[in-house]
């Protein structure tokens, strides 16, 4: 039948097409790292960047006054050395720090960048991180001219910073994205598009962004103008895939297309079956339940909060609900990984983990009911996000509360922005919240629950806590600072202002050819600046 011939002719091109597409097997290039990002950076203007993707890219292509070293301490970056006093800081810049076009990085580039950050016209979301610098807050509020910012270049290689008040963690801030330098003449020449494309950026870091196809791919090349280029081993970092689909990334890793893969709860089991070598690290974030202390909310009652605390078993929660190996049961606001006076903060100020006691929880609950005249079942609104993880978490507490305390938990599931809006307007009794650090000092957590902090969504207010944080913020003396923050944290926990649930860990796997990279709890992550590619026979 002629018809069948027609059909087979129609099929032929399709088969040829498939054959053409086949056989494109390309070996991996030497000294080239392959990576997949979940999202592309929204933009790469360091004065405006707020997200992890931007921070990852900028961390590789830019450099601030300091960098975070291998063991988490601040090491020289553009600044060779520095003097810190209670009133301010002087940074002495190295003379061989260059922009990718060969010009020298000068103190003026820092002055320009920092002034741009606080300029109200620029409307930088992260302007607050510059508030330790003199007049920064007044400039953001429009009360003071931009030029009055307490930073000046006394010559090309000397940067003088004046503080608003003594700042004990200022050095940790200087490696933060918002503090990166920008060259004024280049910035102005981009006509408001600085950072929108790869070619609309100048680089002073270990790599140059040579290609950025929006939504599709990024490519970083080693920056030969970088002063410390001898320590950079990678020639190329390729990000050919941008997808937030975790199973897609797992398939890309299985197919040998990427060298590093973070494993979510879903891909963990797959990874176990595949017998991937797995490693883990603390991603820096601390998670907790935040109670609403606004007028009229029953969560203001301390006995109710005590009942919940006595009932809650952080270990069981981490094992059954969080279920990511390496996560630590929560007992504190300030996490395990942060440094203190000389060693780890948590070693210097230990907090005993709480043990669940159901009988005690019930007796607190009875006291609460008597005090308030409420009758079981008490109803509480639990505000949460729309991810599967947050649903599982909410259901765990719903069962727990109902079984032992007779509390009816009404779960209010909202998408990201709505949840934030409801948190801010206080439309909740309990909200499951988390906080990721901005800089490597306990203050990035400790000032969260001061009465003036906008992130204190539960509106908990405690004068002693406020005073202790003010004291820690007003001195550079590490002993006074750490003692004050530890005392403040104790008040917070004793008053049950929050219920810490866990410190989050991330599990990841990497190819055999990749070594020397770092995972970090604070700052840009992963850090490929010191990574190496070792070619092995038959490596994936």
């Amino acid at each position: 039948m002629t018809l069948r011939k027609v059909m087979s002719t129609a099929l032929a091109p399709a088969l040829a097409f498939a054959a053409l597409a086949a056989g494109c097997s390309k070996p991996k290039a030497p000294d080239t790292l392959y990576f997949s990002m979940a999202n592309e950076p929204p933009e790469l203007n360091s004065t405006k960047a707020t997200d992890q993707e931007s921070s990852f890219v900028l961390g590789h292509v830019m450099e601030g006054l300091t960098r975070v070293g291998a063991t988490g301490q601040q090491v020289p970056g553009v600044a060779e050395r520095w003097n810190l006093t209670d009133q301010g800081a002087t940074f002495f810049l190295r003379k061989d720090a260059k922009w990718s076009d060969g010009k020298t990085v000068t103190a003026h580039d820092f002055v320009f960048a920092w002034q741009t950050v606080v300029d109200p016209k620029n409307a930088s979301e992260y302007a607050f991180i510059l508030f330790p610098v003199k007049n920064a807050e007044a400039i953001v509020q429009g009360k003071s001219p931009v030029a009055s910012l307490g930073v000046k270049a006394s010559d090309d290689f000397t940067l003088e910073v004046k503080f608003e008040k003594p700042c004990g963690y200022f050095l940790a801030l200087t490696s933060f994205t918002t503090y990166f330098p920008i060259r004024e003449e280049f910035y102005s020449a981009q006509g408001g598009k600085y950072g929108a494309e790869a070619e609309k950026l100048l680089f002073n870091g270990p790599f140059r962004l040579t290609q950025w196809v929006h939504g599709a791919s990024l490519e970083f090349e080693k920056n030969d103008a970088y002063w410390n280029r001898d320590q950079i081993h990678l020639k190329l970092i390729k990000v050919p895939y941008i997808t937030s689909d975790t199973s897609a990334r797992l398939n890309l890793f299985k197919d040998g297309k990427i060298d590093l893969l973070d494993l979510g709860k879903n891909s963990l089991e797959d990874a176990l079956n595949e017998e991937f070598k797995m490693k883990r690290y603390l991603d820096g974030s601390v998670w907790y339940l935040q109670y609403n202390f606004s007028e009229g909310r029953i969560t203001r009652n301390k006995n109710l909060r005590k009942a919940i605390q006595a009932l809650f078993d952080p270990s069981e929660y981490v094992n059954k609900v969080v279920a990511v190996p390496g996560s630590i049961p929560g007992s504190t606001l300030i996490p395990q990984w942060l440094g203190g006076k000389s060693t780890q903060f948590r070693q210097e100020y230990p907090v005993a983990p709480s043990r669940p006691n159901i009988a005690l929880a019930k007796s607190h609950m009875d006291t609460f009911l008597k005090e308030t005249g409420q009758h079981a079942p008490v109803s509480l609104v639990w505000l949460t996000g729309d991810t599967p993880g947050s649903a599982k978490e909410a259901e765990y507490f719903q069962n727990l509360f109902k079984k032992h305390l007779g509390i009816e938990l009404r779960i209010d599931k909202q998408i990201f922005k709505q949840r934030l809006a409801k948190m801010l307007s206080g439309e909740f009794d309990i909200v499951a919240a988390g906080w990721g650090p901005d800089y490597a000092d306990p203050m990035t957590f400790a000032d969260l629950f001061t009465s003036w902090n906008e992130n204190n969504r539960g509106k908990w207010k405690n004068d002693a806590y406020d005073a202790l944080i003010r004291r820690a913020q007003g001195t550079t003396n590490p002993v006074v600072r750490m003692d004050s923050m530890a005392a403040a944290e104790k008040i917070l926990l004793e008053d049950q202002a929050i219920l810490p649930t866990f410190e989050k860990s991330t599990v990841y796997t990497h190819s055999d050819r990749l070594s020397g990279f770092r995972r970090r709890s604070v700052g840009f992550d992963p850090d490929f600046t010191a990574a190496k590619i070792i070619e092995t026979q038959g490596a994936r």
Partner: protein
Amino acid sequence: MFSYLLKQLASGLVTVYFIATATFFAMHAVPGDPLMGNKATTPEIRANLARKYGLDRPVLEQYGMFLKNMATGDFGISFTQHNRSVNDIIAKHFPVSAILGFLAIVVAAIGGVMLGSITALFKNRAPDKLIMILVIFGVSVPSFVVAALMQLGVTELNRITHLSILPVGGWGEVGHMVLPALALGLSTLAFLTRLMRSSMLEVTGADYIRTAKAKGVSPTGIFFGHQLRNAILPVVTVLGPAVAAITTGGFVVEQVFAIPGLGRYFVQAVNQLDYTVIMGLTVFYGAYLVGIVILVDLLYGLIDPRIRVQKT
């Protein structure tokens, strides 16, 4: 004909205007603050942002501004990608979705017509039954499952053969388009196959086929000259909306195969309450859909002379 087209275009414009207005007010009614990030800003920083985006003004004034800018084709700057204009996002990412969608439609249309014809020709015999089983699979399994299954399959295949038979994801080469186009087109293909089958069977019994047979026209001649041409009409009708749906609806498939299409930006914009991007993309998609519907109207007349617009 010309006045008909003009009338269609005018009503299309009104439709787009209503889409824009409805979306604008619905979007502003959604609770949540577009300027709010994970970490709270001070009231001063927020005020600076609001001023920059004109959000400090009354909603009606914002609406007026939006209409004025829309008339000039300017949808403004994205809230989340502060340095990118909405037009730039559409210009860079719509072509990707369009290429992918076009390929999917080609796969679906050719495959649907072909398989549909085969099932009709072999009614109730093995090829018919086999294809209909596949069709039921195609209609009932959503494209993201198909996409994930295909990706997994190719990953395993690459591993077993130690070859890169097809890339697992990414964009830029011909090979990157094969799997996503198949995944995206499969459900439409299945739907078209069923449609083609029933319409083909209907045509086969028609009088003019019998006449053609009596005249001694060859089976091939009957198939192409009479059966196919008449049976394909319903397929063309549903093809219009299907083109629009596929070229705009590939978000999940785009995610699975890491493809930089427009769908991703749309979903992100809605989640982030990125007002300018939501408005720009909705108006763009609306106009696109209306345009396709008008186009299909015209095409219909070309295929079937009986439907041609009468001169009044």
